[in-house]
């Protein structure tokens, strides 16, 4: 697959395509927590680092096969998610934001001081098992499962929690349970993303998973449109490519990046695709076609 793609694009573009795939998995996880269920998590990179380090340590120090490391990475991140989710998600409000910021910082400092994690040096020489086919295969599977979830009973329950938690409870939704499950799935995906990332770059260090990285994932979800799968994917693609495209402005890169975000939020406050519904697209399309048919028939 790689060889096939490399006929058309150079290795640099291929790399970015793989990173886009990994970021989509990450952002879809955060979208489930923040976009769909409405629980603001600001520590997504923390869960990513748990996945990355779990996977790297298992394969470097214990020689475990990659598929095992990948699964373990997801499970460890989800376990951490449930561990901090159960006490925090019982409460209404933005406690989760503060707790996740703190948690991600703690995780970073722990890895910075842990011998087995290579301290500040990080871990290098991680087996390069992540490739384009694997990442995009997983993206497709995850998008399909995610879409199935969102348009069925549990998915609607998650949206209802975002919209009005009291009304959701009064409709029979066990909001605590659903918030914790959404958080577990979201952090599981962060762990998977972290593992793929570690085995792609083959080198990780605590600085890779700082607060700004969590904010970047939040940006992807918010820019694309909270709760929308196509929106999240679009937001991720744009925000992964943008820093690369903006390389020509060099030192002003972050300035441009910031200005673009501000502009977009002014003109599309709900995100690019946040308030676009498929059914409205179809209706508008039918109307446009209806009009063009009417005008062409009146011409003749």
């Amino acid at each position, binding site marked *: 697959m790689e060889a096939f793609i490399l006929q058309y694009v150079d290795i640099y573009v291929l790399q970015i395509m793989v990173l886009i795939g990994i970021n989509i998995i990450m952002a879809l996880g955060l979208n489930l927590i923040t976009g769909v269920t409405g629980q603001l998590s600001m520590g997504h990179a923390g869960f990513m680092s748990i996945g990355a380090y779990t996977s790297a340590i298992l394969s470097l120090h214990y020689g475990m096969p990659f598929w095992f490391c990948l699964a373990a990475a997801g499970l460890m991140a989800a376990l951490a998610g449930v561990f901090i989710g159960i006490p925090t998600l019982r409460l209404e409000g933005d406690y989760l934001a503060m707790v996740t910021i703190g948690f991600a910082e703690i995780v970073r400092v722990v890895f910075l001081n842990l011998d087995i994690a290579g301290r500040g040096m990080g871990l290098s020489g991680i087996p390069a098992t992540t490739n384009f086919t694997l990442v995009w295969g997983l993206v497709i599977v995850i998008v399909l*499962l*995610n879409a*199935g*979830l969102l348009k*069925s*009973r*549990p*998915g*609607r*329950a998650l*949206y*209802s929690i975002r*919209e*009005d938690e*009291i*009304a*959701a*409870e*009064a*409709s*029979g*939704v*066990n*909001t605590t349970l659903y918030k914790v*499950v959404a958080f577990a*799935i979201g952090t599981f995906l962060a762990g998977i993303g972290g593992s793929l990332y570690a085995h792609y770059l083959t080198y990780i260090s605590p600085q890779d998973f700082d607060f700004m990285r969590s904010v970047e994932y939040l940006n992807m979800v918010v820019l694309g449109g909270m709760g929308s799968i196509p929106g999240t994917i679009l937001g991720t693609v744009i925000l992964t490519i943008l820093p690369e495209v903006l390389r020509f402005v060099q030192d002003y890169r972050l300035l441009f990046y910031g200005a673009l975000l501000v502009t977009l939020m002014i003109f599309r406050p709900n995100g690019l695709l946040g*308030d676009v*519904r498929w*059914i409205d697209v179809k209706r508008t399309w039918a109307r446009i076609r209806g009009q063009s048919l009417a005008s062409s028939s009146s011409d003749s």
Partner: protein
Amino acid sequence: MAILEIKNVSQEFGGLLALDRVSMTVEKGEIFGLIGPNGAGKTTLFNLITGIYRPSSGEVWFQGRSIGGLRPYRIATVGIGRTFQNIRLFKKLSVLDNVRVGMHSVSRAGFVSAMLHTPWAVKREKVTCEKSMALLKLVGLENKAIELAGSLPYGEQRRLEIARAMALEPSLLLLDEPAAGMNATEKEELLVLIRRIREMGVTVLLVEHDMNVVMNICDRIAVLDYGRKIAEGTPEEIKNNPRVIESYLGVEL
């Protein structure tokens, strides 16, 4: 037969006694009205029945079991549906989805079967959809199924809330000021709707300030004032009760 029994219930908020040893019994199949001046504790009593508050003392019994202190979703699941005084719809979801969320406890599909789109889950989904459409038809919103709930006019939002509450197939329906903000025609339609709901075998407990609506539709009425029940009886009895006239209905000069 009693469907809901409130026994000596009190509710304190800090030093404020919002409900003071209130007792009342709602019989199966009746339309029971709860009236009283603002701040009398009507909505507090609703929140207490539906589990949003835990009673400071006293007991709430529903269909022969104690439900005081259960979490709201458990109370919804045992069969008490409600609407809210300040409409609480899922504004960015479609009208149909609002009702489908209401069917949450009636339907069963879990996370795994939903993700995998198992034939069983797809079938359940179809049943949910049909039942929800039937409820939208009941409240006259079947043509608005794909609109966003937040885009509906006020009166329709109130009716959608009733449809959502009916979706959990309740035996008791709590309506908190259903006629608020409605015009005369809408109120007429509301009376017809509430009577139809009763005919479907659902007991109705409602808070309402519009005396035409209350006196028209209720079999029995209880009056709250400063957290205390000051009267209970048929609409005729309530209209002529001197204490109720003094504290709430007012005297015609």
